[in-house]
């Protein structure tokens, strides 16, 4: 997955994030005395490679605890990776000068899941949206009202409301404020972390449409993180499936939904309820998602996989290209 060309917006190279729970004093003493107590390490993201093409929408799908949000946060620059590299427009974020890094950070913006927790309740909408552009010299304080009004109109908010506080808005409107805040600094790349999960169905449709309109109008690139496969199918060009910190499959959306390769993808697609499927005889995927504290060896999915062999229990399958624009991490592809 290391094609080099101008069409790549962002590339994630072998990125890893571990969260370590350090031992407290008692734990350290116990360890010195020969106890088997050890630091707990969560491998939230474990060697992930992703390419995000310019102007594309990449959907990142997985169940809770698979590391999709952690990956999104690393890409948005909120969390530093433990190892690995993020390459933005051909330049590694770690190799950038502070000036370049700041510019890149502005161009990559994030939209959060909870429209209630992600807005400061004590700030007016004007300041929530206008703070960053003023701080970064994109708008003058004197022109702030016009600047913010313009951004608000773009996301479908009435600029008359710019003096209001977040609690005076509904959930869908708040999500629009969050989107306006991200758009205010003219980003090129948006990381949407479950950005519509907290909204009602009819409001979800409004926000999905807004995302698609903005993509056309502003030529934006998206990383769209969601657990909702039908939304991801609707909006994405390419889909990345994660399971327990690793990418198990990457494919163009049509192909993925038509012919999933990895057994986990297949299982996931089978479980997604669909409007056109009535009176289903449910056949559940066996087992639970293992704890990321203690993932199974080899392929993480093998305890739940119907096709698991002895090799799956020992050896970690590598994500490799099995067809053009199609990657999968499964030993079955070797036969």
């Amino acid at each position, binding site marked *: 997955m290391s094609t080099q060309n101008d069409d790549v917006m962002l590339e994630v190279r072998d990125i890893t994030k571990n969260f370590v729970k350090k031992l407290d004093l008692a734990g350290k003493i116990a360890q010195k005395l020969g106890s088997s107590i050890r630091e707990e390490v969560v491998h939230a993201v474990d060697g992930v490679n992703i390419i995000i093409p310019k102007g594309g929408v990449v959907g990142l799908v997985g*169940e*809770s605890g698979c590391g999709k949000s952690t990956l999104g946060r690393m890409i948005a620059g909120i969390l530093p990776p433990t190892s690995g590299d993020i390459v933005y427009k051909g330049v590694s974020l770690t190799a950038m000068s502070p000036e370049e890094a700041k510019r890149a950070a502005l161009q990559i913006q994030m939209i959060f899941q909870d429209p209630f927790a992600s807005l400061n309740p004590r700030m007016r909408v004007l300041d929530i949206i206008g703070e960053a552009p003023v701080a970064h010299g994109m708008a003058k304080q004197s022109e702030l009202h016009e600047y913010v009004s313009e951004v608000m109109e773009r996301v479908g908010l009435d600029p008359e409301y710019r003096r209001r506080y977040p609690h005076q808005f*509904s959930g*869908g*409107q708040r999500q629009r404020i969050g989107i306006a805040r991200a758009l205010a600094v003219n980003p090129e790349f948006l990381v949407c972390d479950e950005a519509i999960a907290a909204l*009602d*169905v*009819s*409001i*979800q*449709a*409004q926000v*999905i*449409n807004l995302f*698609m309109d903005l993509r056309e109008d502003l030529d934006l690139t998206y990383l769209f993180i969601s*657990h909702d*496969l*039908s*939304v991801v*199918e*609707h*909006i994405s060009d390419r889909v990345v499936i994660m399971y327990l910190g690793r990418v198990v499959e990457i494919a163009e*959306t*049509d192909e993925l939904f038509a012919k999933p390769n990895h057994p986990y993808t297949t*299982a*996931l697609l*089978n*479980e*997604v*309820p*669909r*409007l*056109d*499927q*009535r*009176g*289903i*005889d*449910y*056949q*559940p*995927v066996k087992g*639970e*998602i293992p704890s990321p504290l203690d993932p199974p060896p080899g392929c993480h999915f093998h305890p739940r996989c119907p096709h698991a062999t002895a090799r799956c229990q020992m050896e970690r399958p590598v994500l490799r290209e099995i067809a053009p624009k199609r990657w999968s991490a499964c030993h079955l592809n070797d036969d």
Partner: protein
Amino acid sequence: MTDSAPTLEVRDLKTHFFTKAGLAKAVDGVSFTVGKGEVMGLVGESGSGKSVTGFSIIGLVDPPGEVVGGEVLYNGKNLVGLPEEEMRQLRGNRVAMIFQDPMMTLNPVLRVDTQMMETIKAHDSSVNDAEAFQRCRDALGQVGIPAPEERLKSYPHQFSGGMRQRVAIAIALLNKPDLIIADEPTTALDVTIQGQILYEAQKLCRETGTSMIWITHDLAVVAGLADKICVMYGGRVVEQGSIDDVLDNPVHPYTHGLLGSVPGGNNKRGNRLYQIPGMAPSLLNLPQGCAFQARCPRGDAACNIEPEITNPVENRDVRCFHPHLGESEDESEGANA
């Protein structure tokens, strides 16, 4: 499956909340029936009154809310106004409820076996401990919890979210109820775990003839599970009918819009979704007449009067003056755009 008398019949149920800010008619004239072994999907957005309907049936509406009218007939017996003691005999015994958050059902400081055995003994004091324990173990096994005998000794926090929800379902099953009201039981769960829960629920209804009301905002879940569907908006049922009829041929403009706004189904990838303009009205301040009129592409002066339930299509209850009838999809799409 509706050959015998229905397990539950709700007639013109009205639950109002007398709040300081004013009167909120959370449920205002809701009627439906659920037959034996039938699964009914009760669908609506937040604030549509779907959960309050569930709470009203099982008698769990707290002040300032009050059931002010209508009947809830369980096997022919009206539950509205039933003395609390009699209601308690039914609740958790013949009629059970599963909540969205299993921690609402489970007491965090009691072991699972204590809580489950209590459920059995509260309704039948003649059961001894050993027998009760056996039934708890069987119920946990029935919902697919491995090693149920050991897990009975655990506390709720030692279970994962999906497992906890299964424990809550097992508790609901303990006394083999005739009716289960499930309020968004899988909303907080992952897709593969949701599949497991749906599997258990379906198995239960098929094997034991338990009826179920599945309250959710997720049309797709209802599509796979339910036999019939009730769509609520602003405290009223706007459309109800069999699952295939309603989803394939929605007649009420709200149902029509809702189905158009969900990705998948008829919505091709990358196309704009149909948008229902605006947002759900506050229950404190519902418009005169049809609650949906302000957002409805078909609303006009006639809608200022509350529409009565009519049957514009066979076997379908609809509350609308301007239902979608027999038009081709393209035409109505065009009208919406």
